[in-house]
């Protein structure tokens, strides 16, 4: 039996694991309940409101704002459409068991708070139950109604599939985010004046581009606060004035160490140039503990950050949701807001929010209401836009629905829908890189985002900027390991069968026609054999006459291949386009009713479904095409012979090179994604980044924007709109840190106004 020291196991070891639960309690203890402030400028209705603030949506902006305001002592209520989420350790078993391993895999789904899924976009998009494409079938099946060309079977590509998803659960989409915490560059806030105004030939690109009403320096202190709230691990020295973005504070934690794989990239491509641009591999700042902090443990490199960090080393919004609750906020789950109402007699202030409350085994409470002094809509850019669009404010002759919805005197609500579309490229490197270890991504290349030190990047006047990430999780995103490995196994079996039959023919055990018959019976085609041969080439020296037993050959091939799998990706800047938008049925009545209108497509609670009409600008497509070339060059530097692309080679291409060198591009396995656009003479498949932006943009002019620089609606002084829906342009960074910085800034403003 072990000594006391050995057996005193749980005290120290589990102390830090248990600390995440303690974190919320700790934050609760420092909050003193403030006296309810009274604002004498407010109307009677406002003063009588039971809450100071009602927040719709418990994601990154909503949870953080709720925590900040509740900690200050204000009475806060949060309405969350979906279910609550427990510690990730309680959900990881669902992730293990689910074969799909998609971003939505671990999280509790319910049709009453429905959301799009990755597989809606990819596999089911263009296949109906009877094998035919019908938009009716898709509209019934999917929560998010898409008007992309594949759905409606149009031949042109005016409208494309929107390829990003989101969660509707406690903590929102941050439950499955990666954790990247980049700041925008100073020029990201000035797209119009820095780039559009001086673009030589591309003015058409920028027709709807806008500058932000605030600049980088206005947000810098809030970036620092956001980094502290979520806990960002980053390279303070490396990001000192990075792309012109100054820092007044160091990162709260040292960076997550670069992976072995990152170091291989750094060795092979660091300090090289592509298109006259110096490449610098730099550690990615991320909301992931590099040391034990705030009651959450340091990262253990589970390589499953999307969709779940089993130990919650990665920040997610349940952290602040728990803090808000501990500080006295009311968090009401399974409560789906469906109308925001305006009191025109009270200076067009918001007077209440109506919602439906659902619970298992109970009838839905169809018409609940909540009132407050201030209202914050903090769902994502899809759901907040939908809620506004189904909330009539006043009659209008100029809209199809005959009403102007809440906050929409500018007509901009729902428009300018953007995402950072992603180009993925993968292959087998010349040397081992040992993926599937460590966080999903620990480094990237930012040199295509903007000019060094903030100088104007001449290329960005002509094409979208992009950021490159290096993946530690092998080909997991484009080709999940189960799918990849099982298909490799199939090909190796086929290879071995063909070899055995050749050998048997050569030794007169069977006749040549027997071989043909057996291959036909097993449906092993010439095409399969050529693809197998191409695939085997990338696994190193190809010897089809191997004599080792099948199992040993399989094991050694898989080993040799897997340890050299690399993948990179590029996220593209987007431009706002007026007809790229979130929509709802135009049949909602002026009084806000929709229940008895059969032509409106509704979700399980009878609320109109969101609809999307999505476009990608030529500016972004041009950047995408360049990014594809850049990633190709980077993979070449890593010794990748064959880059995987998602469009399958034609039969004639395969037939043309049966004995030649391996093709430069190989098809991914069974790709059926409809997310494809044509640029020049090439087709490109894109993925979504999950960055839904732009649908209630902020600005300095009420005629052209939905909210002001503080995220306050121009039309309703007690309504704030949070989230990346306020972004006038997409910038070149993932949106979360900027969302949180803006949320903290807005919370500060609201606090000031609520104080007596």
């Amino acid at each position: 039996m072990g000594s006391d020291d050995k057996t005193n196991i749980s005290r120290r070891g589990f102390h830090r694991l248990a600390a995440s639960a303690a974190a919320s309690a700790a934050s609760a203890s420092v909050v003193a309940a403030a006296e309810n402030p009274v604002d004498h400028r407010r109307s009677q209705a406002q003063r009588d409101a039971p809450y100071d603030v009602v927040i719709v949506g418990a994601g990154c902006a909503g949870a953080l704002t709720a925590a900040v305001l509740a900690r200050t002592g204000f009475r806060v209520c949060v309405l969350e459409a979906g279910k609550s989420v427990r510690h990730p350790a309680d959900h990881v078993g669902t992730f293990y068991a689910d074969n799909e391993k998609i971003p939505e895999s671990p999280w509790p789904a319910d049709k009453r708070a429905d959301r799009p899924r990755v597989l809606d976009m990819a596999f089911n998009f263009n296949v109906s139950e009877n094998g035919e494409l019908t938009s009716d079938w898709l509209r019934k099946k999917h929560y998010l109604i898409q008007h992309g060309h594949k759905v409606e079977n149009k031949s042109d590509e005016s409208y494309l599939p929107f390829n990003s998803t989101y969660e509707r659960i406690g903590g929102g989409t941050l439950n499955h985010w990666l954790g990247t915490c980049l700041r925008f560059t100073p020029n990201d806030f000035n797209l119009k004046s820095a780039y559009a105004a001086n673009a030589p030939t591309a003015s058409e690109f920028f027709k709807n581009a806008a500058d932000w009403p605030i600049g980088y320096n206005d947000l810098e202190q809030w970036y620092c606060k956001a980094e502290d709230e979520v806990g960002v691990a980053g390279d303070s020295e490396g990001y000192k004035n990075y792309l012109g973005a100054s820092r007044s504070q160091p990162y709260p934690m040292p960076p997550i160490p670069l992976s072995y794989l990152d170091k291989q990239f750094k060795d092979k491509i660091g300090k090289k140039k592509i298109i006259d641009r110096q490449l610098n591999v730099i550690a990615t700042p991320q909301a992931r503990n590099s040391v034990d902090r705030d009651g959450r443990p340091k990262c253990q490199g589970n390589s499953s950050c999307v969709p779940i960090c089993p130990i919650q080393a990665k920040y997610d919004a349940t952290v602040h949701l728990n803090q808000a609750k501990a500080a006295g906020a009311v968090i009401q789950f399974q409560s789906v807001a469906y109308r925001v109402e305006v009191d025109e007699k009270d200076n067009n202030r918001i007077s209440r929010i109506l919602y439906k409350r659902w619970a298992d085994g109970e009838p839905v409470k169809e018409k609940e209401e909540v009132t407050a002094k201030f209202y914050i809509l903090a769902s994502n850019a899809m759901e907040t836009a939908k809620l506004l669009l189904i909330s009539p404010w006043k009659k209008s002759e100029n809209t199809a629905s005959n009403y102007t919805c809440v906050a929409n005197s500018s007509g901009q609500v729902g428009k300018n829908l953007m995402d950072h579309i992603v180009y993925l490229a993968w292959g087998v490197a010349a040397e081992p890189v040992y993926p599937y270890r460590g966080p999903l991504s620990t480094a990237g290349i930012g040199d295509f985002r903007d000019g060094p030190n903030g100088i104007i990047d001449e290329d960005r006047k002509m094409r979208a900027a992009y950021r490159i990430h290096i993946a530690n999780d092998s080909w997991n995103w484009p080709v999940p390991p189960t799918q990849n490995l099982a298909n490799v196994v199939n090909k190796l079996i086929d290879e071995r069968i063909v070899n055995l039959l050749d050998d048997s023919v050569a030794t007169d055990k069977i006749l040549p026609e027997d071989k043909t018959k057996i291959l036909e019976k097993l449906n092993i085609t010439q095409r399969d054999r050529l693809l197998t041969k191409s695939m085997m080439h990338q696994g190193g020296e190809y010897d089809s006459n191997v004599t080792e037993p099948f199992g040993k050959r399989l094991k050694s091939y898989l080993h040799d291949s897997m340890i050299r799998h690399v993948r990179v990706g590029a996220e593209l800047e987007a431009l706002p386009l007026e007809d790229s938008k979130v929509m709802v049925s135009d049949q909602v009545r002026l009084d806000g009713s929709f229940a008895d209108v059969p032509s409106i497509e509704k979700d399980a609670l009878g609320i109109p479904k969101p609809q999307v009409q999505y476009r990608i600008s030529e500016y972004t497509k041009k950047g995408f095409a360049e990014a594809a070339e850049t990633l190709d060059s980077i993979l070449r530097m890593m010794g990748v012979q064959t880059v995987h692309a998602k469009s399958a080679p034609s039969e004639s291409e395969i037939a043309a090179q049966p004995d030649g060198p391996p093709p430069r591009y190989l098809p991914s396995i069974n790709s059926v994604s409809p997310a494809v656009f044509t640029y020049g003479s090439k087709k490109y498949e894109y993925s979504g980044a999950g960055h839904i932006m732009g649908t209630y943009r902020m600005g300095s002019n009420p005629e052209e924007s939905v909210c002001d620089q503080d995220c306050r609606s121009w039309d309703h002084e007690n309504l704030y709109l949070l989230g990346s829906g306020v972004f006038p342009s997409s910038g070149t960074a993932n949106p979360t840190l900027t969302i949180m910085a803006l949320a903290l800034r807005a919370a500060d403003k609201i606090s000031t106004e609520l104080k007596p």
Partner: protein
Amino acid sequence: MAVTWHTLRRYFTGIDIAAMRELGHPLDDYQYVVQNANALLKRLADGSMPPPPFKRWPQNRIDDFQEWIDAGFPYMPKEKDIAHRVTRFIGLSEYLTGFDNLREDPQLATKFLDRLTARVEEKLGIAAVSGELKTLLDNWDDGEPKDVALNFLRHEKAPIYYWIIKALLHVWYTGSFLNDFGFPEGDNGNPDDNQWTDGLMWRAGLAHPTGYSTEASYGEKIGEQTRHYDYWERSPDKYGKHTGLGDTARLFETKQV
């Protein structure tokens, strides 16, 4: 089948193991758990391990732990307790997968054989279970490998044998099966069984299953100083170090002792 080390090791989560490994308590090390079995059982039973917010072990697992101690810490089942079909299945599986240490965990082999049998019945019919699956298990090593393989290929039921062999390899390597379109189908077994983490692909790739790392930091003595580093900064070795699983994991190569 009696409770063995391979029953128990799945009860510890990756989270448990990683946290404790850093402190010198490797819960995935058979020898360590044997030496500390009573202390561990006590903490598991009184609920102090694992602490909140992690779930307490259900009583049946604690009972299993006690049974394992009472039985003298068996590492694996006795040969006489392993069904003949499982033994045959392990032999075929080792031949096809190239891993020669599958026999260490007959319980996992039993689960995979049960799943394969159900899959064959679902997709090919009950007759294929008593027919081709049984024939394959009985005869895979009946002669020179090349001759045996050629006989199966020349058989009129060759497509069925071909299908079964592929499915067998899929479940061993990935913990799942593919549908007719080449996509994973169904699930990775019971979440409690944790079969995702047993896929041989992770061992082939010298990596840990996604969502299941059991090691984090290492301390390296350099003179008087200790430098800490995370396992993913270094290249892994074939015996488990820096794979994210630690060097007590089931391995790509069987370590020569």
